[in-house]
C-alpha cells in the first residue's frame, strides 16, 4: 500500500487531530493585534465603540463579533441599513449551548449581497435571562428562525409577532431539546410520551390564532387526524398498537 508508511508515521499524533494542511507550525491562535481586518468590524468599532465586545477570526477567514444582547437590534439594524455595509441577507439565525451552565449564544450569520461580505454576530445570554429583542422587523427571514431557536433553546424573542413552537408539537411539555441539559431520549418515559401522543385533542393541532379564526367564524375545527368525528381516533383500539385494547 502506497501510504502505509504515512500511517506508521502519523500514529503518535492521533490525539491531536488532523494536522493543518497549510503548515501553521504550532497551531496557536494569532495574537490579537494581527487579526485580519474586516471593514465592517472597523466601522462598528468607530460607530459603537465598546459595544463590540470581542472580535475573533475562526476557521481561517470567518469573522465573529460579540455584541451586548440589549443592543442587538440597534447594531444589526445599522449593519443592514448603513450604505457602505448593507448586510441585507440574513443567512442564518441560530443558537449554541456549550453546556456546563455557560451562556447560550444567539448567532446571526449575515451576508451582504452588494458587497459580498460575511459577518457573524453573536449575543451571549445567561441561562437565567434567555431574552432578546426580535429582529423580525429587520429581516422577515428571522420569523421561522427565531421560532426554531425558541422551540429548541427556549430563548424568548421580544417583539416577535407569533412566537410559538415550530418543530415540536404545541403541547410539548418536556422542555427545549437542543439544550445540553436535555437528555437524548427526552424527559418523560416512553409510556408517558405515548400516552400524551394518544390523548391529543383536535385543538392541540392548531395555533391560538387559528382557534381565534375558527371561533370568530363559528366553525368547528377541521379535524387533522380523521374525517368526520371530533378529536383523534382512538388509536388504542387499532390493531397492532394495543394500548387500551383490553
Amino acid at each position, binding site marked *: *500500500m502506497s501510504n502505509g508508511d504515512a500511517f*506508521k508515521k502519523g500514529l503518535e499524533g492521533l490525539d491531536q487531530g488532523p494536522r493543518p494542511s497549510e503548515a501553521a507550525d504550532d497551531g496557536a491562535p494569532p495574537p490579537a493585534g494581527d487579526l485580519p481586518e474586516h471593514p465592517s468590524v472597523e466601522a462598528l468599532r468607530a460607530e459603537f465603540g465598546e459595544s463590540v465586545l470581542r472580535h475573533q477570526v475562526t476557521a481561517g477567514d*470567518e469573522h465573529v463579533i460579540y455584541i451586548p444582547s440589549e443592543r442587538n437590534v440597534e447594531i444589526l439594524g445599522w449593519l443592514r441599513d448603513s450604505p457602505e455595509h448593507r448586510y441585507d*441577507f440574513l443567512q442564518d439565525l441560530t443558537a449554541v449551548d*456549550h453546556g456546563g451552565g455557560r451562556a447560550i449564544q444567539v448567532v446571526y450569520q449575515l451576508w451582504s449581497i452588494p458587497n459580498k461580505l460575511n459577518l457573524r454576530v453573536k449575543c451571549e445570554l445567561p441561562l437565567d435571562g434567555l431574552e432578546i429583542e426580535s429582529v423580525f422587523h429587520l429581516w422577515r427571514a428571522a420569523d421561522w428562525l427565531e421560532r426554531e431557536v425558541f422551540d429548541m433553546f427556549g430563548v424568548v424573542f421580544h417583539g416577535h409577532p407569533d412566537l410559538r413552537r415550530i418543530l415540536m408539537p404545541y403541547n410539548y411539555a418536556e422542555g427545549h431539546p437542543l439544550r445540553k441539559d436535555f437528555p437524548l431520549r427526552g424527559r418523560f418515559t416512553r409510556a408517558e410520551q405515548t400516552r400524551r401522543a394518544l390523548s391529543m385533542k383536535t385543538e392541540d393541532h392548531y395555533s391560538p390564532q387559528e382557534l381565534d*379564526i375558527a371561533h370568530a367564524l363559528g366553525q368547528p375545527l377541521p379535524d387533522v387526524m380523521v374525517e368526520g368525528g371530533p378529536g383523534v381516533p382512538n388509536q388504542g383500539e387499532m390493531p397492532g398498537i394495543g394500548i387500551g385494547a383490553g
Partner: protein
Amino acid sequence: MALKRLIYNVTRNPELSPGGALVHAPIVPVQGESYEVHEDIAGEHMLINIGPQHPATHGVLRLVLELDGETVVRCIPHIGYLHSSFEKLGEYRDWNQIVPLTDRMDYLAPLIYNCAYAMAVEKLMGVTVTERCKVVRVILMEMDRIFSHLLWLGTTAIDLGAFTVFLYTFQQREKIYDLHERLTGARITTSSTRIGGMMADLPAGWIEQLEEFMTNFIPVVDEVETLLTNNAIWVGRTQGVGDISAEDAVNWGLSGPNLRASGVTYDIRKDRPYYDYETYDFDVPVGEHGDIYDRYLCRMEEMRQSVRILRQAIDRLPGGPINVDDPRVILPPKTAAMNDMESMIHHFKVVMEGVRAPVGESWFSVESSKGELGMYVVSDGGSKPVRWRVRGPSFINIAALPHMIEGALLSDVIAVNASLDIVLGEIDR
C-alpha cells in the same frame, strides 16, 4: 356584504421572432374589471386544513387556510411532522458518523448534503482535500442538482395536471439512481463522503455511464421545454402567480432558483466560490418577475448549465489519490489494517474514538439545488460536535409561502407550494 371578485381575461398575445418563430407565451392572463358576485355567498369565510397527508404538499407539510370563497385570506403552515432531531443526534455522533444523517435530510439531492457537511468539517479541521476529490465532488454535486431539479419538474408539472413530463423526468432520474448505486451501493441514502475524502473512488466505467446519461438527457430537457414553455395551460397557471419582488425575496431570505427568479444574482458558486468553481465556465440564469414561470425557466437553464459544468469537470478530472494523505483523518487501507500492526491500531483508534477537530467553529455554505445550504459546526476539541446546525434552504423558502399566496386562489396554493421546491425531510430535520 357583497364580495368583490377579480376576473381574469385571457388574451392571445403571441410574440414572434423576426424569423416568425414563437418566442413568448401565446396566452397571457390579463386582470379585468372586478364585478360583484351573488349577494348570498358574500362574506362566507371558511377554515380548511390541507395535509399533513396530502400528495400535493410534497411530504408532510400541513397548511391551514382561511378562505373567502376561493381566495386565500390567510395561510398558516405547520411543520414538524417529520422532525427527526438530527441536530441533537449529531451531538452524540462523531464527525464521520454524522454523514449518514445528512443525506436523510434532502433525499432528493443526497450527495450535495454529504459534500456540504464534509466541506464544513474539513474547513473547521483545516484539511484540504486532494485535487481529484475536489473535482469528483463537483461532479457529484452538479449531478445531484440535475437529479433534484428533475424531480421538481416532474412533480410540479403533475401538480398542474401535466402527467407526461413526470414520466419523462423520472425516466432520467432512474439513470442517476443507477449512477448513485454504482458509486455508493445505495440509491438514496448515499453517505458517500468522509472527512478528508470519499468513501470510495469512482468505479471503472462510471464516468462513461455519466457521459451517456448527459448525452441522452439534453434531448429530454428540450422535449420537456416544447411541452411546457409555450403551453397555454402551463403559462396561464404559472405566469404572474406566486410572484415576489427582489427586495422582498432578499428580506424573506429566499435563496437558490427562488431568489434568482426574482432577479437577484446571488449564487454561492459565483459569489463565494468553493472547489474552484470560479474556473468553470458557466452562467447563472436570473429571472425577472419572480413568479412560478420564472422559477421554472431558471431551473430548466440550471440543468443545462450543470451539464456544462459536468463536461468541464470530466475533462479536467485528475488522477491521483482521492483521500488526503493524513493518517489522522482517514482510515488506513483494509489490507494495511490487516497486515500491519500500526495501521491496525490506527484503524481501531479512528473507528472507536473518531477524528478530533480543533476547538473552534466553522460556517460553510454551498449552492444546493434548493438554495443556500449552510452547515455550522462548533467543536470543543473532541471527536463529537458541540453543535451541528443545518441552514436548510427549504426551511427558509417555505416560510415565505404565506406571503406569496395570500390573496391568491386556492388552486394556486398547490402551484406555488410546488414551485418552491421544498423537501420536508430537511425542513423538519
